[in-house]
């Protein structure tokens, strides 16, 4: 009991010192809602539209607080889960923007800490913490989407190097990334899951090329990536040879947890910090109808109420999952459920937003629409990818059925 009390008071003093550090070190413009082109992705060619973003990143990275729970040995914050919860609460209290957003933090880092060797961690983790290297994900291939394990990009050992040939698709920001974490086939003779390895390499290597893909929303966040006799040191292979699928799946769990966060904004019905009339569904619905007290269309009102109830219950579920994972280590099979539901919610939000705003939400560009209205049309189109990227909705449901509910393998139909 004494021990409990002292640890509670230690946490409270951590909160106090964190609060005063943030007061002193978080620049004023960082406490305003994030705008799209000021998100800090880091990397060799990092751009800082807002100079205070750079300052904020440096200060946070210095303390390791861009990755608060990672070990101090590799530049992380070394905080306990409780301390990191306090840190995020204190950051939220002053509406601080994230200092750094990166696939290094949300995807690669956690699995490199789990499966990498000391040299690999010492080389890469500190640079992820400080945002010096921007990573991209080499997973999907033209012939390997939902059936990811059928991937064909090959890595053949030649002396102390692997020679990599093949192509990847849907590589987010490959044209801006410095390094890639990549799934490659290192054995063609064994069942598909058993011949995959997980390897890291420099995107500046000879033989790597990228080509942006234009999406239905008009933007090009994804690329096709080609490898033509790319030479990669054999020491860049993470974990055991041919055991890459284990790492790949673990990383996907982290990715899903990240993507399921898209649905969370819906708990307040907002689109991330904007204060306009389209910030929430109900505000938009009333504004565009000239309603004062309540939404005049009862059918739309019902749909928005249903959406908001689901969003609120989903937010509680995400929170509960965090509380429950305090006992477990890292994300578990429920990450598939959260990914599935969060993405469906986000898509629903945009469909309802279109109904709330009417034809003003369907402008493509030019006069006659506010910037915000044009933005919504693009966000609506972009949201369609939510239930495809990081494993489709259908794949998530397969995983829940198999891993959580223990239902028999679908292939048993074929094998009998």
């Amino acid at each position: 009991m004494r021990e409990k009390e002292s640890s509670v008071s230690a946490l409270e003093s951590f909160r106090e010192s964190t609060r005063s550090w943030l007061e002193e070190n978080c620049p004023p413009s960082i406490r305003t809602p994030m705008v799209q082109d000021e998100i800090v992705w880091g990397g060799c060619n990092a751009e800082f539209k807002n100079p205070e973003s750079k300052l904020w990143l440096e200060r946070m990275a210095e303390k390791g607080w861009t990755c608060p729970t990672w070990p101090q040995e590799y530049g992380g914050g070394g905080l306990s889960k409780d301390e990191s919860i306090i840190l995020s609460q204190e950051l939220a209290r002053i509406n601080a923007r994230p200092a750094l957003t990166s696939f290094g933090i949300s995807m690669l880092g956690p699995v490199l800490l789990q499966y990498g060797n000391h040299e690999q961690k010492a080389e890469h983790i500190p640079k992820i913490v400080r945002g010096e290297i921007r990573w991209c994900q080499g997973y999907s291939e033209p012939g390997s989407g939902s059936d990811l394990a059928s991937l064909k990009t090959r890595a053949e050992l030649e002396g102390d190097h692997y020679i990599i040939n093949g192509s990847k698709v849907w590589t987010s920001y490959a044209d801006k990334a410095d390094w890639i974490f990549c799934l490659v086939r290192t054995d063609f003779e064994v069942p598909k899951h058993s011949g995959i390895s997980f390897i890291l390499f420099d995107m500046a290597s000879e033989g790597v090329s990228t080509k942006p893909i234009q999406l239905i929303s008009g933007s090009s966040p994804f690329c096709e990536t080609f490898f033509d006799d790319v030479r990669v040191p054999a020491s860049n292979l993470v974990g055991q040879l041919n055991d890459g699928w284990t790492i790949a799946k673990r990383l996907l769990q982290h990715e899903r947890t990240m993507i399921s966060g898209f649905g969370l904004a819906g708990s307040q019905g907002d689109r991330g910090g904007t204060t306009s009339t389209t910030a929430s569904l109900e505000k938009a619905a009333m504004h565009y109808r000239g309603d004062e007290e309540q939404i005049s269309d009862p059918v739309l009102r019902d749909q928005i109420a249903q959406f908001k109830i689901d969003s609120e219950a989903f937010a509680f579920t995400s929170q509960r999952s965090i509380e429950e994972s305090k006992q477990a280590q890292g994300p578990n099979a429920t990450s598939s459920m959260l990914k599935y539901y969060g993405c469906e919610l986000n898509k629903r939000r945009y469909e309802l937003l279109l109904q709330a705003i009417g034809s003003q939400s369907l402008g493509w560009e030019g006069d006659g629409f506010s910037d915000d209205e044009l933005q919504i049309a693009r966000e609506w189109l972009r949201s369609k990818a939510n239930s495809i990227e990081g494993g489709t909705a259908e794949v998530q449901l397969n995983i829940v059925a198999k891993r959580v509910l223990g239902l028999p393998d679908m292939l048993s139909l074929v094998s009998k």
Partner: protein
Amino acid sequence: MPLVLNEDQQMLQDSAKNFCQQHAPIAVLRRLRDEDNPRGFDQDIWQQIVELGWTGMTIPESFGGFDFGFSGLGVVLEQTGRTLLSSPLIATVLLSATAINKLGTDSQKAELLPKIAAGELLLAFAIDELPVHKPSHIAATAVKQGNDFVLNGSKTFVLDSPVAEKILVVARTSGETGDLAGRSVFVVDAKQTGVEVTRTKMVDSRSCGKLTLNDVIVSADSQLGTAEVTDSSLNRILDIARVGLAAEMLGSALEAFERTLEYLKQREQFGVLIGSFQALQHRAAIMYSELELCRSAVRAALSALDEQDKTDLEIARLASMAKAKLCETAELVSNEAVQMHGGIGMTDEFDIGFYLKRARVAQQFLGDVNFHRNRYATLSGF
């Protein structure tokens, strides 16, 4: 608001689960129905429930209870939902004891609450007059006459009214039908002249009835709190009951789902287990997701009930969120449960139909999905 159970609540959950499975399985409800038992519950099981202390869980220690909180009662109700345990917990403890505790004077509490905690008094709570829940629609009247009130009117869907010794009646002491002001709650003796209860047999086989009050004379001190109730205090009582009911519905829906899942893993057709069909797997995975949301909604709402700093508005929003979500999911899961069981799911011999029947009655009780979505929207300012 904690969303996971603490150690005490975990222990309570385990013991409640054991009790319900060992002593109050679904076969008990089937027997009560087959006997056409007008009480709607098993007296021996009720006695054991009293001994377990469940009747006193939300009653203050000063009035003979344990003050364990609504989260505790919710944990128990979830487990009773799993075996469809029919008992006076909902009408007597969840609704009536809450109303007495929230509204009553000290002497009213001292007279009634210790008896409830000791399992010596059964009550019913009569509010609805229409076949749909509409708490503002109170046409029943209570007219002051000297030191007494004279009650007239009729009530429907009154849970446990055929067995209750006393009935809490919501009646109008001023204003017009539909007004939020002017409602009072009276403690009426079920045996009193002018009180008539007609048993109504519902699909869920629980005890229910219609109540008519014909010039029923009660003394002024049978008016709870000896004053009219405000809309917010009446709603607080109903909201507590709605959340408790949502907890029971959660247990029933989880059990119906798990039984269905087991069936999918046993039943063979076309030479394979039907659970290997993707058409069923995805529907099962979607139900699982919805049930996880339901679990969180119920936990959040129960925790809020035990927090002193929560406003009536916050409680009301959470209660309507939980009840709306549970109504929607109870309907989904109970329908899918019958469908996925196929022909056997339609037979009376098989238990799954009991879950369907109970789900619909619980959905209607204290407001259906439409009522609560509408209320949630209003409370959210749109």
